[in-house]
């Protein structure tokens, strides 16, 4: 499965960023083999004046992401992610990327089905 995680670092030992639209990077990998497939892409929505969650959601669809792990999704981001049929799961910022992938595999992450607060990532 092609998996994407919002993050502030470019390493599997770095932590999950709980912002979706405003995270610095997305780590993209094959969930079966994160270590040799992990790539890091700049979040194209990071500097958007508005609608960052929408743009980041569209980026997920373009990147053909099949599973998204992030902190929470605002109402607009959730609409885009759901339209793209991408299941999203919530992970905490205390998890490294690798830990988050394992937690998802073990079924320990909760599916994001409700929108969080809008503009939560603007800090």
């Amino acid at each position, binding site marked *: 499965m092609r998996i994407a995680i919002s993050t502030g670092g470019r390493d599997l030992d770095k932590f999950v960023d709980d912002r979706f639209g405003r995270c610095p990077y997305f780590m993209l990998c094959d969930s079966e083999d994160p270590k040799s497939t992990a790539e890091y892409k700049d979040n194209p*929505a990071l500097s*958007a*004046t*508005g*609608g*960052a969650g*929408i*743009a980041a*959601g*569209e980026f997920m*669809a373009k990147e053909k992401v099949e599973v998204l792990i992030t902190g929470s999704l605002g109402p*607009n981001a959730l*609409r*885009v992610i759901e*339209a*793209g*049929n991408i299941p999203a799961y919530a992970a905490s910022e205390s998890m490294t990327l690798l830990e988050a992938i394992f937690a998802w595999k073990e079924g320990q992450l909760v599916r994001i089905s409700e929108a969080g607060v809008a503009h939560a990532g603007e800090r």
Partner: protein
Amino acid sequence: MRLAVLSGKGGTGKTTVAVNLALCWAPQRKTTYVDYDVEEPNGFIFLRPQIRNTLTVSLPYPKINGVCTLCGKCSEACQYHALAVVGGQVLVFPELCHGCGTCGIVCPVGAVDEVKRPLGEIDEGERDGVQCFQGVLKEGESLAGPVIRSLRRREKEYSLQVEEVIVADCPPGSSCSVIHSAEGSDLAILVTEPTLFGLHDLKIAVRLMREMGLEFGVIQNKDDGGPLIREYCTQEGIVILGDIPFDLEIARIYSRGQSLMHEPKWAHLFKTLGDRIVTEVDQRRTRGGIA
């Protein structure tokens, strides 16, 4: 003569100054009061005009029709991310759309239709010889610009013919809303108060006026006799057009939603202020003419 009343800091007395100046000029000159503080217009609380007309301000946003090929050009072009092409459809977020129409221009197949949503309204009325206009942004909307621009067009249509006084009650701050409300005025009146916050935001407003090349002067409201504002204005060579004292009676009248014109003492103060402003505008016009 167009006067823009602004402040930088909120709550310094823009509306008090704008409303009472308009009321004091109205018996001698054709006077129009326009409330550009569309996010929280409050001049009508004091003027209580008889509303004769209400216009809706609307903004276009895209609606995607059946010929769409999902090419994604509209979404790429939109700076506000009001469109997203995902999952075999185009999602539209009207509340993010600024109505610029770029999506329709870049669409190669004509799949973008424009529909409109109401953004706010413009109310027009009259009170004691003062023509009154106000813009009201709908609750929950964030785009004040289109309402302000519509109000400005309405002001121009209305005041083309005569030599009259237009008092524009501008929003607080120093953003686009203030610029759109104040530009093209003969004089900007910066209402301030003798507090550190008042001075801080006055300095920002002064920078904005200089950047815009607008003639301006200061009215010190809630004057406590202290040197804070006076010293700054002297240093910067800024004209103080007048002072309104810190006075509990003014606060009482204000809190009842009344104008200060009923009280002779304050009516006299505003008359003096009004005359001073007219003189100031005339002088600067002459000076500008010579230069």
